[in-house]
């Protein structure tokens, strides 16, 4: 357990790291709205470029970003595939899938790509913000955005506990492997039964970790319902105001365009 990494924050002093946490949190909110406003992949890609710019300005390692976002990449690619299947009767056929005799249509392809971009963009934006903002600053940012402290703190604790649970999981799997357990061998039922050998200890260990932590926090006078000092009070700088203004104007323009019928793929489908 000595070397586990307990949060996503990469440290450093990049221009993105120096931004007010509220700006970055509002940026995630902005990304969420933007990806919902348009469904056309070209306009989705434009939003995605802002995330890429953030990764570059944040001096983040591409490898780490891709590694941390891999779930989003898989889900995005899978959604693209699903939408091309769902919309195989909509639009002009591009190719026919052999054996299944399904057609891939232009609309299915484009709409699926747009959905994939939505998922990529949200995942990458979240990871980029988490990698450039300490959990403490995120909690403070949420608090000063008027999110109830208990909720903000829970988010911080979850981010803090996930890697801890992963390390426990690794130890438990090793302990069971030492008892000749091969999790990837055998039939479905046999595999399911084998997995209880780590699921049960992991659940019990997780409960113990959470219980120990709550005892430790109580011992340090923690009460989510009492006022507390937030020592790292965030403060907006000129660059934050500029970025927030850009986001506001961009969002306004995007909504206007969409209301005038631009940026969609299939009429009536968001």
């Amino acid at each position, binding site marked *: *357990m*000595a*070397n*586990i*990494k*307990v*949060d996503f*924050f990469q440290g450093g002093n990049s221009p993105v790291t120096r931004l007010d946490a509220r700006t970055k949190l509002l940026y995630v909110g902005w990304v969420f709205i933007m990806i919902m406003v348009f469904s056309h992949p070209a306009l989705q890609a434009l939003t995605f470029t802002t995330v890429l710019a953030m990764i570059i300005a944040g001096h983040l390692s591409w490898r780490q970003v891709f590694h941390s976002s891999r779930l989003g990449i898989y889900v995005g690619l899978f959604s693209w595939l699903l939408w091309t299947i769902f919309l195989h009767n909509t639009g002009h056929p591009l190719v026919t899938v052999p054996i299944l005799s399904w057609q891939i249509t232009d609309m299915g392809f484009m709409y699926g790509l747009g959905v994939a971009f939505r998922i990529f963009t949200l995942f990458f934006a979240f990871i980029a913000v988490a990698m450039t903002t*300490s*959990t*403490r600053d995120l909690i403070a940012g949420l608090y000063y955005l008027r999110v109830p402290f208990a909720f903000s703190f829970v988010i911080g604790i979850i981010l*803090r506990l996930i890697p*801890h649970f992963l390390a*426990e999981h690794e*130890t*438990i799997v*090793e*302990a*069971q*492997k*030492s*008892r*000749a*357990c*091969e999790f990837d061998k055998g039939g479905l039922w046999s595999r399911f039964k084998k997995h*209880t*050998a*780590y*699921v*049960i*200890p992991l659940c*019990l*260990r997780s409960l*113990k*970790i959470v219980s*120990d*932590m709550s*005892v*430790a*926090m*109580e*011992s*340090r*006078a*923690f*009460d989510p319902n*009492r*006022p*507390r*000092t*937030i*020592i790292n*009070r965030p403060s907006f700088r000129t660059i934050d105001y500029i970025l927030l203004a850009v986001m506001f104007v961009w969002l306004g323009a995007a909504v206007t365009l969409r209301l005038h019928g631009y940026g969609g793929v299939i009429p009536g489908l968001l």
Partner: protein
Amino acid sequence: MNTVIELSGISYSYRGREDQPVLNDINLKVERGEFIVVTGRTGSGKSTLCYILNGLIPHFFGGILKGTAQVAGLEVAAATIADLASRVGIVFQNAESQLVGLTVEEDVQFGLENLCLPSTAILERSRWAMAVTGLTGLEGRSPWRLSGGQKQRTVIAAALAMQPEVLVLDNPTAELDPLGKAEVLAVIQRLNQEMGLTIVLCEQDLEQSAPLADRIVVLDAGRIISDDRPEIVFDNAELLQKLGIRMPQVTDLARRLRIGGKWDRPLPVSLPGFLSDLSPKIQLAASSVYYAAEPVPKAAEQVETKTAKIVVDNVSFVYPDGKKALDGVSLQVFQGEILAIFGHNGSGKTTLAKHFNGLLRPTKGGVLVEGTDTKSVSVSQLANKVGYVFQNPDHQIFAKTVAEELSFGPRNLGWPEDRVQEAVDAILVELNLQSYREKDPFFLGLAERKLLAIASILIMKPQILVLDEPATGADYTINTRIIEYVRELNRKGMTIVVITHDVAAAAGYAHRLLVMKSGQVILEGEPGLVFQQEELLRQCYVDAPAVTKLGQELSKRGWQSEMYTVEQAYATLTGLL
């Protein structure tokens, strides 16, 4: 002096177990500035006592609390935990479970933010607490990346920053290596001596903590059995032995000498105390009779055969994050021996041991187990050759009954069901656990859970057993039971590798010792040879047993004697005195 803790008639039962009181009629007074060590075996009520002192009992855990507890001027039952938190700091055994912040500074400031102090006061107090605990310069570091001792000092700094009147520490050094233990005890001693902070330290290992204490309180089955100055408590060594409390080695040695009529003074608490009482006797003996050291019994008989069961050949290992954990390690583990591996946390002990059963494969070099290259077989194929028992039994226990838990390994090996049941019955008899056959393993005591974890590996009939810190979290009684069983297995021919911080115990049962530092083997050999390397041991943060230090002191006075167990020291001194 004035009273800072006063417990009168305290009895307590946890919620749901109202008929099983954990504490019974506890009466305890602690004066301001005192250093109290509370000791007792697992389940004696030490942790419960700590929880009462900072109000977690009754406010967090509930249950039934009888009697009155006054701490730092507050009535515990009437005060809130937040009120008590600023007056009573508490530190638990596992530092990692208490780390809330993601940097050292953040962790230290967490409690101060909860107290709603102004930012300037928070900064001032946190800097002061980090300076006092020697953490200056580590403010921005992740506590998770620090050594065990530094992590525990971070937790102490967090408690200290709240400027408590009393600091309560519940087994704070149990999971630390010798260096971490020394660091933490030095900080605690400093807080008490220089700042006058009242300390209540619950500890099972009295070797280093007893000399610091003003008083020792002995708990057993929820009752105070003894409460007095260390010299007086230890003078009743027979009682401590009966209660399963491990005495400092020099105290135990003097006790044995007293039984043999060779010691007539109060039993000493520390090595300097022992030496000061011993010196006149030795000088007297030296002037009256020439002493030639008689051969003393070896701690463990030498292994006759030199058949290598495991050969580690120039192994290096790099973790995926780039950390080099092993660097050119070569060694052999011989048939029928007990090999003990020491080294500070992060020295590479566990990484090395995980190569023995194939959990890790070398980045460079090779590991042969009975001639088989571990790179060519799976972990499960090695499971009936090398058994690996993890430190915490709760990482492997999952079944509904003890019998089911034991049968998991053999079933994975594809044994027929009748053979599995036979093996389960046999191992239960061997460990004297027959009565637990159908019991839920989660409700067993720590000793039984640890034995069950060992049994669930042994049932697969490995010829080599690797135990990763089997003593961690266990008291002396449990530890002794496990050691006795390991020795018994070894007498039957099993090869055993033990990773441990308990140098004194290992010196008594291991044939060979191996000391690691920064992924390399620094020392290797029989205990006598290893303990002679005082400087190298110091560099590896390994503390020789107290009786070995005694032997070294005697050597300086002209008495050549090799001793690293109490039995050997007794045999030597009986000849001397």
